[in-house]
């Protein structure tokens, strides 16, 4: 009597096979690729391929351009991340204030940049940042600030990209925060008011702790997303000027698809993955030791 195949198998098999074949296998292959010196010559003939072990990784460590990309990406994550999360939280708090009507109108407006195609937005902002014809410098000139060469000055190019990224993404996190805020029971606030606490104290001792899990979640997904910065520098600056906007993924793309140093590019991609994984694990650990464990919030 042959055992019947669990019908569940047929339900998960298609999706899982797609994921296994077109994601897991390439990721594993990426590891192997990073141990070779696959390049243009190897594309011509397989015999030109050499197994080089950890050479790509060693080269990566000594390559100044990699560290520039790493630093830039870190700069982006550490500035745009908190900025984006902070702005979304602030807007979410304001939006959730009971005295505000037209909530859904505002919410729609703030969410529009999120759905707009990144490439199109990058093109628009490229012109907004134009030192002579751009709206931004014009606006600044009205308040007496001299023209800034946003995309041409190595000092200002990354801030320009940060500004655009925050503008584009804050709506997404805002929605999540709004949901989190709405789930905080009113009675907590009422009780605090009766006790005489004013709004800032209420914010600090009720809102923030209750929002902590949401906050960690938002911070995590924002960080993971921002580490993968690519389209903005690709469309707006091509990694320039003077490599000030070169991100890790952009470096991977240039090495992999422009110069076809695929072995090296795979090593770069893998290092990125390792960094993201490490930070994710750290964050998860922090969360577990978070407010619940501290006893601030009842389980």
């Amino acid at each position, binding site marked *: 009597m042959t055992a019947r195949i669990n019908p569940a198998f047929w339900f998960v098999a298609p999706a899982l096979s797609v994921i296994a074949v077109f994601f897991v296998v390439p990721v594993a292959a990426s590891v192997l690729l990073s141990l070779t010196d696959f390049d243009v010559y190897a594309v011509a003939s397989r015999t030109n391929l050499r197994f080089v072990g950890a050479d790509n990784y060693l080269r990566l460590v000594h390559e100044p351009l990699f560290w520039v990309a790493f630093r830039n990406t870190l700069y982006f994550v550490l500035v745009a991340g908190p900025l984006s999360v902070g702005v979304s939280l602030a807007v979410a708090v304001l939006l959730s204030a009971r005295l505000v009507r037209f909530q859904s109108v505002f919410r729609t407006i703030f969410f529009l940049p999120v759905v707009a195609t990144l490439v199109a937005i990058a093109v628009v902002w490229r012109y907004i940042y134009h030192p002579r014809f751009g709206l931004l410098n014009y606006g600044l000139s009205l308040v007496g600030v001299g023209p800034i060469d946003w995309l041409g000055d190595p000092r200002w190019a990354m801030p320009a990209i940060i500004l655009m990224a925050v503008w584009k993404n804050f709506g997404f996190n805002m929605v999540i925060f709004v949901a989190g805020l709405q789930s905080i029971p009113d009675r907590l606030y009422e009780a605090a008011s009766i006790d005489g606490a004013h709004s800032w104290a209420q914010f600090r001792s009720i809102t923030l702790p209750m929002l902590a899990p949401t906050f960690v979640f938002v911070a995590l997904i924002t960080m993971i997303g921002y580490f993968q910065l690519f389209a903005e520098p690709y469309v707006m600056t091509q990694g*320039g000027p003077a490599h000030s906007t070169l991100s890790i993924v952009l470096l991977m793309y240039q090495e992999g698809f422009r110069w076809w140093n695929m072995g090296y590019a795979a090593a770069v991609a893998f290092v990125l993955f390792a960094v993201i994984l490490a930070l994710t694990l750290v964050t998860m650990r922090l969360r577990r030791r978070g407010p619940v464990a501290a006893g601030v919030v009842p389980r």
Partner: protein
Amino acid sequence: MTSAHHLTATLRAALLLMVVGVGCRARSEAPVAIEFWAMGSEGERVQRLLAEFERQTPGVRVHVQQIPWSAAHEKLLTAYVGDAMPDLFQVGNTWIPEFVALNAVEPLDERMAHSFVLQKEDYFPGILDTNVIGGALYGVPWYVDTRVLFYRTDLLQEAGIRLPPATWDAWLDAMLRIKAGGGRDAYAILLPMTEWQPPVILALQRGARLLRDDDQYGNFRSPEFRGAFQFYLDLFHHDLAPRDADAQVANLYQDFANGYFAFYITGPWNIGEFQQRLPAAMTGKWATAPMPAPDATHSGISTAGGASLALCRGSRHRDAAWQVIEFLSTPARQSEFYRLTGDLPSRKTAWMQQDLMHDRYAQAFWQQLQHVQATPKIPEWERIADKITQYAEAAIRGRMDTDAALTALDADVDQVLEKRRWLLRRGADAERARP
């Protein structure tokens, strides 16, 4: 019953006719579709020429795909790896060594020799040479590109100079005078930091060999290169050239008209662009001149640039694609293409047909094309050129001093060439191993 029989018979006859008809049609028509990748504005304009080709050759249809220069290199390589290469493509002649190493292009000596349309002697020797790798010809020069000086004649006259500079000293003098007269917001020369041609041209003029030992190592610390490099950097350090970013190219023509800079080292496509995009007030106020030489005993060399037409080795329609190349390479078509794009023809006959050597703006190019030199013909050249601009920019922005930049450049280039050295060694070992 009889009607059914009739019907079947008629149907069968019709079917037979159809099959025969289709078969015949298939044998005689069978239009061949050629994929042709062309870059930039050439991609846009060549489609007009090809309409005539399709009329002349009814069995061949050409689909032109236009690709921006900034993405061309990666798209071609990606297409090669993905087995999605076009049958025919325009290729910058400095990229040809790379495609030869990939075995992606077809050698054309035989076709050239048997062609009624193409004559080797009619091409500028320096230009044709860039297409010859290992003794075989891999591309047919389509149009030529070399860099010369474009300058504002009126600004030069205001500074008291009547003739365009012929030596570096005269050139530097002119630039200093123009800068002095221009004020704080004006510069003397525009040198986009993403362009490798200006520093390399200066180096070649000084007689620098960019790579040594059969192109296996960088040679950028040689006194010739260092001298030329320093001259280039000093133009920025003395505020003669702005440190603008490439993203600001949009206003190049407006800036030239406004006197933001007076000199610009660029190629023939800008003859047409300048005429089109400069305001009417600028007519007659600009001109072209060959590159100044380091001193009066040399002639100013420039790069042997341009684009060629290459055949993909794996293409199934090589003969038809070759027909397209022949069509575009007749002097008449080259002249017509020149009129459409301003790209200078690669064939001297076409120059003579249009009397271009006496053309007001093109004559500088005619003179320059007699003195052009190729950059190292190796696949890694593009990478190396990119590194030159990278370190030049670092030195210009003061992040490294000249010697540090050149040392780092040499180290980087040595690293880039490591695989080449390995392959050459392996080839030499194989040679030695043979009895």
